[in-house]
Every structure is written in structure tokens, then in C-alpha cells.
């Protein structure tokens, strides 16, 4: 990796990628909030933001400025250190996870191969899962540190929910791992040339997407922040930039979930038909995640929220057995074809 371009060239590329990821993540999160408001407005026959800039396009910018200047309130009996730590974990972990997502195929320039993900490890998929699994701490500690019962209940619920649905996510993606024989995100995409895994693993795709909604605290699984029962859930007591970090993390998590779904099931940066390959891979990747993100927003404003016991039952008694079944069937078919 270091060979062809020298040490400082390598450092430069890593820093450049990190800066691009930070800018992309911040912009994506800001405009996801805009998209969510616009789409929800359309679904509910309203106009949505339309005052700041043309079509309200500068609204996210105004929101960020507002968040910066808002009064920073904090409850009295809080755990000072944890109260500050929790939102930082949320933001950091979400950005870390994004570092291992390949937005384009490896590009070879002379003797140097440029990988489009920041951290290229051969267990990229596990890396992302590991990082997102640390996100539980931010939600739970945030709920605990605020010393408020709404926050604590929200935090407790979310910790249980995230751990339960992590299992469902793991089982759903196992089918793809068996098919591709690799945990390397780039290799998984390359194996899908010609036939995307969604056609071979349709069940796994739906299981992953549903479990992903739960992992991202999206409706119909947004129990950690059920506003009708919990105020706002784990971030009830947060304001100003601390709240903004939670907000940012939630939208980045959505992007990550859609990115993983795109990479594993929808062929990542690959075009749908070979003759369309003149369009750069990054564009295809962005188009695909945009479609999935739109679906997520669409679902949010269409479906009501689950009841808590139903949520747990659904995760453990429906998603998990279906995921296991999918693994067994995939394994048997692959073994039979090999024989």
C-alpha cells in the first residue's frame, strides 16, 4: 500500500479521504433532514421548508446555525462526564463505520491501486458491524447520564432493542457472506457482477432492511424515542450541539445501513446493465443509497409504531428464525451445487 507512492503520499491520501468523508457525512446528514421534511410534507400534503433559499434548500444551513447558537441547557443531577461523552461517542462511531464503505471500485493508476474506502481491511463488513455495535453506548449512557426517567427508559429500551436486532442483522447478512466467500466489501461487490445478490438472497435483503430500520431507530421501530410516551427518549435532556450530534449520528447511521444494503445486495458501485458502465461507480452508489434512503423516509410516514413487546417478539421469533432458515437453505444449495 505504501510502496508505490511513498510514505507521505500515503499519509496525504489518507488525510484527503478522511476530510472528504467528514464533509460528505456532514452534508449528507444535513440534507437528509431536509429530504425527510420535504418528503414527509409531500406525503402529508404540506409544503415543507420553502423560505430559506430556493425551494428551502438552505434550510439545513439555517438549522445548523440555529443549533450552534441555542442555549445549552443541562439537568442538575447529571453525570457530567458521561453526559458529554455520550453524544461524542454517537458521532464518532458513526463516522468510523463510514470509513470502511467502498463507494467505488479500486482504481489503478500506474502501479498504485487506489481503494475508495478509508480503511481497507479484509474483514471490512465485520469492521462496520463492530463500529455500529459500539453505538449502543452513546444511546444508553446518554439516557443514564441525564438523570431523567424519560431518558433512562428510552436508553434502556434502545439497548435491548439494538442488541436484539444486531442478531437479526448478523444472520441476514450471513447468506451473502456464504455466497461471496469473503468479508471484504470490495470483493463482495465484485462477485455481484452480472447478478446482484438481491436476486439470489431476496429474503435476506428484506430481513436486513427491516432489522436495519430497527438498528437505526427508524419508524416503525423508533421506540427509544417514542415521543408520545417518553418525551423524546434518550435525548430528552440534550440541547444545542450535543443534541445535534445525536441528530447527526442518526442520519449517518441511516446512510450506513443503506450503504451496507447497497454493497451486499444491490451491487454497490456496479451499474445495473453492462452498457451503462460509462457512468462512474460513485454515481451508481449514490443513486442506489438515495433510493433506499427515500424508502426509509417513506416507511416512516406510512407505518405506525410497534408496541414494545411486539417489537421484541418480532425480532426474536420472526426475523431470527427466518434468518437461520435462510442460512441453512443457502448452505445446502451451495453444497449441492458444489457436489
Amino acid at each position, binding site marked *: 500500500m505504501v510502496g508505490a507512492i511513498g510514505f507521505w503520499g500515503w499519509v496525504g491520501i489518507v488525510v484527503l479521504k478522511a476530510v472528504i468523508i467528514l464533509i460528505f457525512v456532514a452534508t449528507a446528514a444535513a440534507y437528509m433532514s431536509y429530504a425527510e421534511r420535504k418528503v414527509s410534507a409531500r406525503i402529508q400534503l404540506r409544503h415543507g421548508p420553502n423560505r430559506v433559499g430556493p425551494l428551502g434548500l438552505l434550510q439545513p444551513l439555517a438549522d445548523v446555525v440555529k443549533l450552534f447558537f441555542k442555549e445549552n441547557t443541562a439537568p442538575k443531577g447529571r453525570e457530567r462526564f*458521561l453526559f458529554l461523552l455520550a453524544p461524542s461517542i454517537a458521532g464518532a462511531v458513526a463516522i468510523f463505520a463510514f470509513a470502511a464503505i467502498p463507494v467505488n471500485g479500486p482504481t489503478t493508476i500506474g502501479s498504485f491501486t487506489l481503494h475508495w474506502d478509508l480503511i481497507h*481491511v*479484509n*474483514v471490512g463488513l*465485520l*469492521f462496520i*458491524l*463492530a*463500529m455500529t*455495535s*459500539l453505538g*449502543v*453506548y452513546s444511546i*444508553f*449512557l446518554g439516557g*443514564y447520564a441525564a438523570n431523567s426517567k424519560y431518558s*433512562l427508559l428510552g436508553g*434502556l429500551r434502545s*439497548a435491548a432493542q439494538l*442488541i436484539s436486532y*444486531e442478531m437479526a442483522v448478523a444472520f441476514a447478512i450471513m447468506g451473502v457472506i456464504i455466497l461471496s466467500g*469473503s*468479508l471484504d466489501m470490495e470483493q463482495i461487490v465484485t462477485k455481484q457482477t452480472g447478478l446482484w445478490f438481491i436476486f439470489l438472497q431476496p429474503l435476506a435483503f428484506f430481513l436486513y432492511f427491516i432489522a436495519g430500520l430497527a438498528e437505526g431507530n427508524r419508524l416503525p421501530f423508533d421506540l427509544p424515542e417514542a415521543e408520545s410516551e417518553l418525551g423524546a427518549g434518550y435525548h430528552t435532556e440534550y440541547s444545542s450541539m450535543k443534541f445535534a450530534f445525536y441528530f447527526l449520528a442518526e442520519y449517518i447511521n441511516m446512510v450506513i445501513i443503506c450503504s451496507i444494503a447497497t454493497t451486499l445486495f444491490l451491487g454497490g458501485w456496479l451499474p445495473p446493465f453492462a452498457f451503462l458502465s460509462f457512468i462512474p461507480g460513485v454515481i451508481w452508489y449514490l443513486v442506489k443509497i438515495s433510493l433506499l434512503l427515500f424508502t426509509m423516509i417513506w416507511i416512516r410516514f406510512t407505518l405506525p409504531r410497534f408496541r414494545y413487546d411486539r417489537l421484541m417478539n418480532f425480532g426474536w421469533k420472526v426475523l431470527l428464525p427466518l434468518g437461520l432458515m435462510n442460512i441453512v437453505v443457502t448452505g445446502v444449495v451451495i453444497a449441492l451445487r458444489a457436489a
Partner: protein
Amino acid sequence: MNWALWLLGAIAVISAISLIWSSHALYSALSLVVTICALSVIFLILNAQFLFAVQIIVYAGAVMVLFVFIIALLNPRAEERPRVDWHMVLGILASIVAAVGVWTMAGSTAVVQNGKIRGAVVGRIAHPSSFAYTEQAVNAHGNVQTIAGQLFTTYLLPFEVSSLLLLVAAAGAVYLTHHARKGL
């Protein structure tokens, strides 16, 4: 990457000390999470990517979450204890003895070789027959593939037995909770 190893080692040791010293159980648990994360990044630098991911997913992301969960639910008060008592003196003495013992057994020359920390060398000393894999050999096949190959051939029986043990433990936990609920 040598300096990174020292840095991570320092983080791991400091958070381990804070795990023991902090008077609040929740901070102890969180210090342990930091230790686990630092160790897992050391695994990553030593080319054990799979161990890195598993360490974080299983320990930091699942087991420790439950610990933190329980501690926060029980919400124990901060411990009140004297600054120095005979427990502490004894503990410090014992850890010094243990550290010296490990250092002499592993051999200081083997751990730091030509100014480089050698994880592989330490591993080979601890278990000479099993450490036949160099970094190049593992990376040629892939980390996961090498570990899986070993688990399902050489160590198949211990692997299956340990999974059976876990299953028994899970069934036992389910039985105990149901048993308790009947009495209520």
C-alpha cells in the same frame, strides 16, 4: 507502527488501572470497554483483523453493554474506602511479582527485538507448536479463512464442545428465570 503499539499499550494499561481504582462501578465497566478497544486495535495492527472485529463485537459491543446495563439499573453508590489499606499494598506487591514473572518467562529480548515489539514471537513462546502461522501466510489465505480452517479441522471437538456448553448455559438461564417467575 511501533509507536502506535506503545501508545495503545499505554491506553490499555491506564484504563485497566482506572478499572480497578475508580470508585464508581459504572466508570470501572467503561474503563474495561476502553481496555478492550485498545487491545483490539493492537490485534488489528498485528494483522489479526478477525480477532479485532470479534473482540469489539462480542466483548465491547455485547457483553460489556449488558454489564453497563445492569450496573446502571442497580445504580450502586460510589464506594467509600480508605485511600491506602493492606489490600492495596498486597495487591500492588502481587501485581509487581506477576509482571516480573511474565517478563522473565516471555524473555525481554523476545518481546522487544531490534526495537520492535513482536507479537508473533510472544505467541510462539507461549505455545510453540500451534503458532505455525506467520503474518504473510495468514494474509495470503485471509484471516477468517485460516481461523475457520483450524476451528473446523484441528480443533473441531473443543469447538463443538464449547458451543454445547454455551447452549447448556443459555438453557439453564431460561429455566432459572421461568422457575423464579412461578413463585411470584
